[in-house]
């Protein structure tokens, strides 16, 4: 049995490797920022995105996923998936084009189409706080050298 498993893994690796060399290596880079209120000289408050050196429950975080086609040929059918960290309560994306999962990535849809099961067997409409994964499907081909970014927000529970 052990031998069989190893050989399956080897096949999987072999099939993935040539694709990566095919010429369109997509690069993904994840960043986290925190919104901090800063006082302007005139006393009003400004919200700034800063490096998260200090994070406490209730802080609003901004997650940025940069993507770039670092290769020489186009990439298509791009889907970017981001599980929401457990300690984060999802509060939306900047574009609103995402689909979400509220069951750990099993089923997907727009949030207003999803329902969450209650312990008593009934169900209720899903809310932002139920979201476990978000996914963007880019409906255009990404040309070689092209790049973009996807942004979502969350609050530290």
């Amino acid at each position: 049995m052990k031998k069989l498993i190893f050989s399956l893994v080897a096949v999987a690796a072999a099939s993935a490797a040539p694709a990566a060399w095919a010429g369109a290596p997509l690069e993904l880079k994840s960043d986290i920022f925190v919104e901090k209120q800063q006082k302007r000289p005139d006393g009003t408050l400004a919200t700034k995105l800063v490096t998260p050196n200090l994070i406490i429950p209730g802080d609003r975080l901004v997650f940025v996923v940069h993507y770039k086609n670092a290769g020489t040929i186009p990439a298509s059918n791009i889907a970017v998936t981001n599980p929401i960290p457990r300690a984060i309560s999802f509060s939306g994306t900047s574009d609103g084009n995402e689909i979400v999962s509220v069951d750990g990535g099993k089923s997907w849809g727009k949030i207003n189409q999803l329902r969450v099961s209650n312990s008593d067997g009934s169900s209720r409409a899903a809310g932002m706080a139920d979201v476990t994964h978000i996914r963007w499907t880019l409906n255009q081909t990404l040309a070689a050298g092209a790049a973009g970014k996807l942004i979502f927000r969350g609050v530290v529970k």
Partner: protein
Amino acid sequence: MLRNHISGSSQFSGAKTRRYGVQAVLFLAALSASPAAYAAGTLAGTDIQNIATASYDSGGSTVEIQSNPVVIKVDELLDVVVVSSDPGDVTTTNGATDAPLTFRITNNGNGPEYFTLTPNVVNGGDDFDPALSQVVLDTNNNGVYDPGVDTVYVAGSNDPLLTPDQSLTVFVLNNIPASQNNGDRANVTLAATATTGTGAPGTTFAGAGEGGGNAVVGSTSATGQAGGFLLVEAASIALVKSAVVADPFGGTNPVPGATVTYTLVATISGAGTLANVAITDPIPASTQYVASSMTLEGSPLTDASDADQGNFNGTRIAVALGNVAAGQTRTVTFKVTIQ
């Protein structure tokens, strides 16, 4: 597991989660259940890790890639709340020792924290200041001060350690002066402060937080205080006098020659003890005291000033009751004849 591998993973590692072990974590992930919810939120020291994944088609194949993991650590919020557990004034008595006031301290922060306790018996807005006896931690957690069982608090030595959301009952024991007036109140406060530090909300102590992060003072300024009141309820005495007439003809008419039996009932109420209680009652005009008719609690007293409690001096009876505790009564009777 395969699905997890494809979609990448967001990890949540905190002290609380680690205890569950690998299997439990996977089980929770499958149900997409949330970790235990704390009032103050995510535990200090928890790492928030984000990884994005992408799949795309290129050159006739589907490729899956992961982003770099970004990890940030949740810092420790310092917050504490102290409330008085007493529903109202706690009644006590003159000269009482170790009269307890009860407080409850709650760690509203998101990390385990030691707290320094500071009692204060010298406050305004009251009638007197008791003497501080001790501060005692309710170590058997039954909400009641148990002398010799609960641990005496020594600042800096056994400062209580409270985990997030954990509460502890603390007793402040007071000694009451011997001669306060009935109804006098004393305000006693207890303050709890985070040992990591206090200050204006937002004050930061770099590297001092749980799990190696920073510690940040929360909205409570990392200190809490509450006050309770002790109320001196001195003993008081009420005297009720009644009379029963027996006339020489077997009736109850107050005619000359009739005998009147007076009953004096002294009721001590409140709390504590009344010292040197004495009852005197002048013999009414136009009546004559019936010799040796005094009784105390049904036992006869002699009329002479001697070892027993009663005496008659020709114009009044007097009964010395000595010290009488609250809640007790003393009944004195004597007889006169109508002239």
